């Protein structure tokens, strides 16, 4: 016999375990194929690539999962005993071991390369010229968004100018001519469909994480660092922005809204309105 000593005794415990593995396999196949719960609606260009990597890994691990749990359940059901029988005495098979080792290594290598192509397209490519630039500063427990306005130049900021009353949360130097048309809004971000957005991430105090589930974007905002990420919205609408890095007791409510406008005109109108509000102050 290939298994050394033939099938063993079918036991209740063995069958019960095999049944458990079967239930596990069926339920997980249902969860991952019927997808009763799944990713939030995709709304960015490169988010699809991330979902693609996820799907590739899901197929490979799914096959391994069903295979291993299935074989485990089958073996446990098939090779039971009453407590007196003898098993086969064999404990090596260099060829099979080498085959499995090399097979696993090859699959892992393929997964690395697939994933790295997407990783490179996200991190090793700059935002296209003409992107909308936003400076995002996290703080306990809010997000500040700073837009350069029509002149496209960000006004000077200085931490010393930050006020206690929340009227100047990023320390914008009002004396700098470039700052005249800048707008700074709290927990409210805007972008336009089809126009890449370049986000410069900073933090005032502790580490936060800029998480836009629909865009598949997540990047930590680290105090002392200025980190660039970019995304290109493909769908108009409002999307939630969450903090994904534990930042203190109010971490859960560090929420902002990203509004993706249909046209550039909508964005400009919003910006004009905000600027008028701020000048009025």
């Amino acid at each position, binding site marked *: *016999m290939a*298994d050394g*000593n033939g099938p*063993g005794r079918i*036991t209740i*415990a063995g069958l*019960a*375990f095999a049944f458990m*593995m079967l239930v*596990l396999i069926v339920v997980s196949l249902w969860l991952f194929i019927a997808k009763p*719960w799944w990713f939030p609606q995709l709304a960015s260009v490169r988010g699809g690539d*991330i979902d693609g990597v*996820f799907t590739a890994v*899901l197929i*490979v*691990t799914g096959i391994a*999962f069903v295979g*291993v749990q299935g*074989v*485990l359940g089958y*073996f446990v059901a098939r*090779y039971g005993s009453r*407590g007196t029988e*003898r*098993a*086969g*005495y*064999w*404990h090596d*098979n260099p060829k099979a*071991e080498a085959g499995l*080792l090399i097979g*696993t290594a090859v699959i*892992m290598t393929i997964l*690395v390369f697939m*994933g790295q192509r997407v*990783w*490179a397209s*996200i991190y090793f490519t700059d935002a296209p010229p003409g992107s909308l630039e936003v400076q995002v500063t996290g703080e306990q427990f809010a997000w500040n968004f700073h837009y350069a306005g029509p002149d496209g130049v960000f006004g000077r900021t200085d931490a010393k100018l*930050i*006020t206690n009353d929340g009227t100047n949360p990023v320390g914008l130097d009002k004396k700098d001519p470039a700052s005249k048309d800048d707008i700074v809004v709290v927990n409210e971000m805007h972008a336009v469909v089809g126009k890449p957005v370049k986000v410069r991430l900073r933090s005032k*105090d*502790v*580490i936060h994480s800029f998480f836009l*589930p629909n865009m598949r*974007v*997540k*990047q*930590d905002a*680290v*105090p*002392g660092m200025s*980190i660039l990420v970019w995304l290109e919205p493909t769908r108009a609408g409002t999307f939630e922005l969450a*903090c*994904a*890095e*534990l930042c*203190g*007791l109010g*971490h859960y409510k560090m929420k902002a809204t990203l509004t993706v406008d249909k046209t550039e005109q909508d964005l400009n109108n919003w910006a004009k309105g905000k600027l008028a509000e701020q000048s009025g102050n």
Partner: protein
Amino acid sequence: MQVEHATEHAHPQLGFWRKYVFSTDHKIIGIQYMITAMTMAVVGGLLSMFMRLQLAWPGHAWPALGKIFPVAFAGNIMDPAFYVSLVTMHGTIMVFFLFTAVLTGAFGNFLIPLQIGARDMAFPFLNALSYWVFLLSCIVIISALFVAGGAPLGGWTAYAPLSALGEASGPGEGAGMTLWITALGLFTVSGLMGGLNYVTTILTMRTKGMSMMRLPLTQWSLLITAVLGLLAFPVLLAAAILLTFDRVGGTSFFIPSGIIMNNRLLGNSGGHPLLWQHLFWFFGHPEVYIVILPAMGMASDILSTFCRKPIFSYKMMVYSMVSIAGLSFIVWGHHMFVSGMSPFLGSVFTMTTLVIAVPSAVKTFNWLGTIWGARIRFTTASLFAIGFISVFVSGGLSGIFLGSSAADIYLQDTYFVVAHFHLVMAIAPLFAAFGGIYFWFPKMFGRFMNETLGKLHFWGSLIGVYAVFFPMHILGITGHMRRIYDPLFYDFLKPDKGMNIFVSVSAFCLATVQLVFLANFFVSIFAGRRVKENNPWQATTLEWETPCPTGHGNFGDELPVVHRWAFDYSVPGAKNDFVPQTVPPGAEKV
């Protein structure tokens, strides 16, 4: 040698305190570690029950809890700061004070001398000291729950600068955080004393004939783990000391310039928050293997014993553990893909991480190879060892998503991560530890645990852990962030409410099943069925040559001599279906 034996055996009758409390006997110290860790597990588990209560019914008023905990449940609703401190304390207690303590502290101490044929550890006093320092660290960490401001808010990873700025960054970041750092410092010192002992003992005190390639896999795993601990713990200790300097000494190791806390510009400059993450995870990833390797070793030995079949490919089992240990020092960056670390490093760490999956897969194949053609005896111990494989595979496979940096962008800091690490480094080790407890309980206390209750415990646990942790993968896919007090604060998480309730109810059931185990454990110490023979499971390793429970000095006048490896089950032509390591070649036929 004779003279040495004579002195070793001239043990005066020790009183109760010296024998059971201030003991230097490795077996007593092992049991002390075990019972202390179990106590910590009850605390850590209870904290997670509160977390699940909040996640299933956020904002719900619990008048009864409001009466018992007037601060944590002010106005009968759980306080957000309390929730985050639960997250921190649950993680810290479980990772360090349960898993590390029970797998290396309890089983390491109890099993090393017994399985290698030694009378005790190389440094018995150091061993006792290691336990007492560990106990002190337990008291310190628990006390963090009771100081003004409560326990820290930064999670078990204590990312700087949240952890470095003191009370300004949150209520628990004052005294609570100081106690957290102190407890971890003490814990690492205790771990270093233990590790030094384990390495020395296994390398120098093996009995005659016990060559390295005849060691049971449990011993290999404990040796490798001890080496990992010796290399990784000092890094955590150093990081904890630097963090203390930042907090009380005015230094800026982890605090950059320009931090504005409560609208006040801080004077620090020159530090870097990512330095903490690098130090923490340089320790933290090997720590994962410090927990899982002994679990793998014990599960392998238990599996082989009850399969009545040699472990498949012993050599590859050893080599894969060694390579996992080596690789574990070059994968830490996969915890930091979106941290702001150079994306080039992200590529490198993806590669090393998926490489480490290969030896883990090899081990899985070898476990399946062990069961293939076996004659399994279904005891509670063997069921937990088999359950270990299933859970380890489930959790291990979801790690491949997280190791791929591109997929991790989305999944990082979601419940997908929580699902992954709970299955692979909490539940899998827990299953192996349960298997180990049911298996070695007769050797520890001279009595069996109740098998019927044991099986109830196993089936309840197997169903329970999958019901609790498998759906968390799906929660992660929907984007559910970890460590948030109220998921319903987000519209995109509202559809998760039902699943959160399901997970919570499953968690309460799972916890209830663990009460069966606790009752079985403590009642069996005094009232379990007595073990009449030395070797009730018909196993091959040296500890089964000694009486149950094993006396002081472990072996009789002569230390055992080893003639074969630890896996001679179902040897063709042998009289019994197991051949102990002490049986000389040829003698098994008689």
